[in-house]
């Protein structure tokens, strides 16, 4: 490994992107959230999708409706979202491509079987192009267990790290988390490639929602009017390394060092 590890901003480069199945370019789902293994050096383990991943990120009434509706139709005790292991990801670009023969989400399968498949001319229903679905029943059951498993309460969700209040060592408000910086130098996943490790948090002085990619270098502040406006709304933006974070709980992030000692995003 001579080349430097890849760096991504989770919200900018991963969240809400389209997931595409490598084998046949089928559109599978969105990256509704990312699952992380907590610890000293948390890293991304899976892409989460479906109402149970999107609902909590939406929050409010729409989010609640979405999660509760999904739960009504689930048989599991503690249903979890649709889950795709990070080790299957082959490319992260304008879309996220995944290897393997991932099945569609349940709603698509149900509608194909019970609505669309019954209208004449719907030809080619179900996973016809999929060579491995020959003996359907058994593998489908196996897949279902793996894909739509139970919720994993021990895992952390990246979406939960965004928009949190950040406090300095003495409890003074420092700002809001706007993005999570990921570096691909975590442990090997399934022996294939390195995991994306959470390297630090981008913190904006003022609460103003998303950065739209304008946290990147000034060369990318285009159109300049828009770039300047977004930067102004957020106030100063600094970067806290993971080691500089003292604690993370459901409500807020506590820094181990004062705001002034954090790096400015210009040096990133």
């Amino acid at each position, binding site marked *: 490994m001579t080349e430097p590890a890849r760096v991504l901003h989770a919200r900018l480069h991963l969240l*809400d992107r389209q997931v595409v199945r490598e084998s046949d370019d*089928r559109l599978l789902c969105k990256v509704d959230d990312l699952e992380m293994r907590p610890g000293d050096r948390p890293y991304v383990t899976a892409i989460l999708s479906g109402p149970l991943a999107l609902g909590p990120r939406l929050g409010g009434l729409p989010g609640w409706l979405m999660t509760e509706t999904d739960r009504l139709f689930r048989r599991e005790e503690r249903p979890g979202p649709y889950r795709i292991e990070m080790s299957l990801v082959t490319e992260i670009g304008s879309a996220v491509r995944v290897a393997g023969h991932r099945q*569609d989400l349940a709603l698509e399968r149900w509608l194909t079987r019970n609505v669309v498949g019954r209208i004449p001319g719907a030809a080619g229903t179900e996973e016809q192009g999929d060579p491995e679905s020959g003996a359907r029943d058994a593998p489908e059951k196996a897949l279902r267990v793996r894909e739509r498993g139970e919720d994993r309460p021990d895992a952390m969700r990246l979406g939960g790290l965004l928009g949190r209040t950040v406090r300095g060592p003495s409890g003074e408000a420092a700002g809001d988390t706007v993005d999570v910086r990921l570096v691909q130098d975590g442990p090997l996943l399934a022996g294939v490639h390195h995991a994306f490790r959470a390297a630090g948090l981008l913190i904006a002085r003022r609460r103003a929602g998303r950065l739209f990619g304008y946290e990147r270098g000034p060369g990318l502040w285009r159109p300049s009017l828009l770039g300047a406006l977004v930067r102004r709304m957020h106030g100063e933006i600094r970067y806290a390394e993971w080691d500089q974070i003292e604690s993370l709980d459901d409500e807020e992030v506590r820094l181990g060092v004062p705001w002034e000692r954090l790096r400015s995003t210009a040096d990133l």
Partner: protein
Amino acid sequence: MKRFLAVTLGILTAFGGFVDIGDLVANAVVGSRFGMSLAWVVVVGIIGICVFAEMSGRIAAVSQRPVFDLVRERMGPRAGLVNLGASFFINVLTLAAEIGGAALALELVTGLNYLLWVPPVALVAWLVMWRVKFETMERVFGLAGLALVVFIVALWQLGPDWGELTTQLVRPPQDEGVPTYLYYAIALLGGAMTPYEVFFFSSGGVEERWTRRDLVTARANVFVGFPLGGVLSLTIAACAATVFMPVAAEPDSLGQMVLPVAQGLGKVGLGVVILGVFAATFGATLETALSSGYSLSQYFGWQWGKYVVPGRAARFHVTVLASVIVATALILTTIDPIKVTEYSLVFSAAALPLTYLPVLMIANDPDYMGEKVNGRFSNVLGSFYMVLLLVVAVAAIPLMIATKAGQ
């Protein structure tokens, strides 16, 4: 010939924006009441939609990502959901109006009440979306819509006082209030820049599997289709200004709106114009119905599109079918299709910035675009239009209330 056929997507999209049922009548109303004094708004609209359609087409060709993907990706799930709710609502309202419009065109031909034509029109539209290939669909209805060019011939035959039309360009009539004038300006701009145009255009680019090599095709579609649509809408206004304004009449139905053509070109012209009206409204039916499927599927990441067989895009086709059913039911309540579009145009004006902002941002993002990012020219125009659209979005609904929708 093949080159020419390659721009039918642009023509179909643009006609759905500029000369669909709401605009056909709105243009005639505006022409008869304000003469040509609102023509500048249409020109502003043409330039605006060209700027953003070009960006969205370029993004679709380079990254294969349609517009609603960008909305969700850059604005996030919450703002994306707000936009989805607004756009979807407008789409279904407009869809209802277009089905009604196509049925009205059939009423003009057959004399049978349009309500009898609504179910068959909706059924045929759905069959087309269910089975006909995207390319065939876009060619047939794009080309048939060109019959509306008869308005240009008719205007020339009517031999209007060109000097009078030119003076109207800069002189609004004195008897109309400023708020009413502004209200119609916003309605025209909203009609020219409706979000479903870029949803449909960029998704159509993906349906046709555009790649970097098709950037020229994408641009040709934009710069042929939208200006043509805009010129037609100006011509309709000019025809109305010539025929109706001197006698202080205001056309309020489709039947009256095509009268200038009958006057200029007789029965043959009337036949052609009704064909054009039918093709344009039917094309807009397809555009809005598919757009509702596109926007919902692209927000949630579902497989969408006509490039796979229907059975492989179940959620998408269920959405399209459900929208058609709801819209048909809505229009069968005998609600006036033309009134429906007037309102939906103004609501869509309020939702414009949420759609065009992410397009502008991503057209500047080298992660997506590589070296095909916006140049300075696109950015200056794009930024200017963002400011304009913000003003329009804020002003749209208050003006609608203040002028009682332009009365």
